[in-house]
């Protein structure tokens, strides 16, 4: 599907917030336990960081390592419930998107997040084979951010119409621009907003 995020005007004109500064770092603390040791032994430098913030644990991994980590956690540590997949857009970063996987283990009653950073146009590996629930979740991420998942059985838009242009949850996709474009296309007038 040919997707081009064509905004009518440069987004700066309508940006609701001042140009985003690179956000300050999160005051996270290191996360060390038997789980991090086992993961570090297996994946070594492909996991860049083990941290916790407000008592919630997360790790930052290399994009290629995400699917193997999720598989390893599922098979060896009982993280059998993929709660959610989502993304966050940081347009000023070189690796623009942060993909976030939330995993839960019923046996351990523990929730962890796996984060990875990918560039614009880079494809992430699909985890539908491991967790069927990822099917719609990955479709939604694709729909909203334009991140493609390699190996997804049916990567189409899910919430937006098929002929929609752009990916609305990207930071450079402004609500007013979307509205102006719609009014111009369908009503043939300037929306005046």
């Amino acid at each position, binding site marked *: 599907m040919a997707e081009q995020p064509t905004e009518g005007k440069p987004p700066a004109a309508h940006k609701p917030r001042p140009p985003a500064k690179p956000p300050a770092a999160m005051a996270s603390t290191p996360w060390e336990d038997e789980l991090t040791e086992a993961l570090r032994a297996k994946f070594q430098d492909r996991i860049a960081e083990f941290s916790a*913030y407000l008592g919630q644990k997360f790790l930052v991994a290399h994009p290629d390592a995400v699917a193997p980590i999720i598989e390893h956690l599922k098979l060896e540590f009982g993280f059998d*419930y993929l709660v959610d997949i989502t993304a966050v*857009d940081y347009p000023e970063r070189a690796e623009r998107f942060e993909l976030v996987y939330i995993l839960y283990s019923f046996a351990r009653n523990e929730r962890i997040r796996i984060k990875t950073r990918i560039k614009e146009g880079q494809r992430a590996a699909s985890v539908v084979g491991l967790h069927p629930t990822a099917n719609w979740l990955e479709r939604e991420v694709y729909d909203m951010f334009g991140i493609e998942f390699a190996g997804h059985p049916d990567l189409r838009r899910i919430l*937006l119409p098929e002929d929609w242009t752009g990916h*609305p*949850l990207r930071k450079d996709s402004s609500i007013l621009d979307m509205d102006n474009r719609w009014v111009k296309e369908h009503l043939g007038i300037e929306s005046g907003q």
Partner: protein
Amino acid sequence: MPDGTFLDATELVLNMGPQHPSTHGVLRVILKLDGEKVIGTECVIGYLHRGVEKIAENRTYPQFAPYVDRMDYVAAVSNGLGYCLAVEKLLGVEVPPRAQAIRVILTELNRIASHLIWLGTHALDVGAITPLFYCMREREEILNIFEKYCGARLTTHAFRIGGLQYETYDTFESDVRAFCDMFLPKVDEYEELLTGNRIWIGRLRNVGILNAEDCKAYGVTGPLLRAAGVKWDLRKAQPYSGYEQYDFEIPTGTRGDSYDRYLVRIQEMRQSVRIIRQALDGLPGGPIMGKVPKVIKPPVGEVYVSIEAPKGELGYYIVSDGSTQPYRVRVRPPSFVNLQALDKMCRGALVADVVVVIGTIDIVLGEVDR
């Protein structure tokens, strides 16, 4: 999908919805049929997509709170609770015990209201008209309590970040107690109508089976997971808002079919009454608002907080960049995730069973589409 159809007939594609009344809103299901048998389904969703997550990025934290009510609008109080808990966690705000207890009372009332809507419409879909009127009658009492408490009946915006805006009204406790006393015998009445009813059992038993393994694979939570025999409820597993103080059971089923889900939800309504009564008995005094700064600016960070909404795990993943507006709000909707298992539950069933399965998942399209 099986290769050949029965008698090598051509596969029939039937469109169901989005205006079909049994799809509970604007769900469109494309059915692939072999005669009367379903050999595949595909959901087409998004008709009610309003871009809630995008709106969040353009509002301040308190400004966004009313929007969450419009996702699962039959359980608006639960939505509000999840959002407030997430922002409070980011801010590090303590909610006073009185506010926590009142939150529990209202949330459990809302759980009953949500289950009543489910029971009434589900029974109506299956052909039993009477339960709908009974359920609406009792739900009205709950909505009256909401209206007296905060002025709104459906999209209540009952909670604020840090606690509550309103103290309870004068007869709140007696009203809620009167509702509890009135409601339990009514649940018995619903059961008299349905539990032993041959048609009800015939339509629901062994329909839409989803076992525990499939539930976990598809991320299905809430009554569907419990009906499959998994004793898992976030109110017990990871208690929030003081749920650890209350004594209640997690009802479970064994077969994971539509009938077990019915039994689980009926039991959950009774358990909710039990929680409400305990919360009323031990209702503490004191303030109803924690120490919240005038301008809500959480420090840079991110948090995922989830609650046991009537339909399953409702989560909020919020990323703060240190400003007054959230950098990103992700809602993990139970209806959306649970609906994905529809295909699994419908394969091999009859067309009429699809209606039962849609009903038994208990979706609200406002939450599926957001």
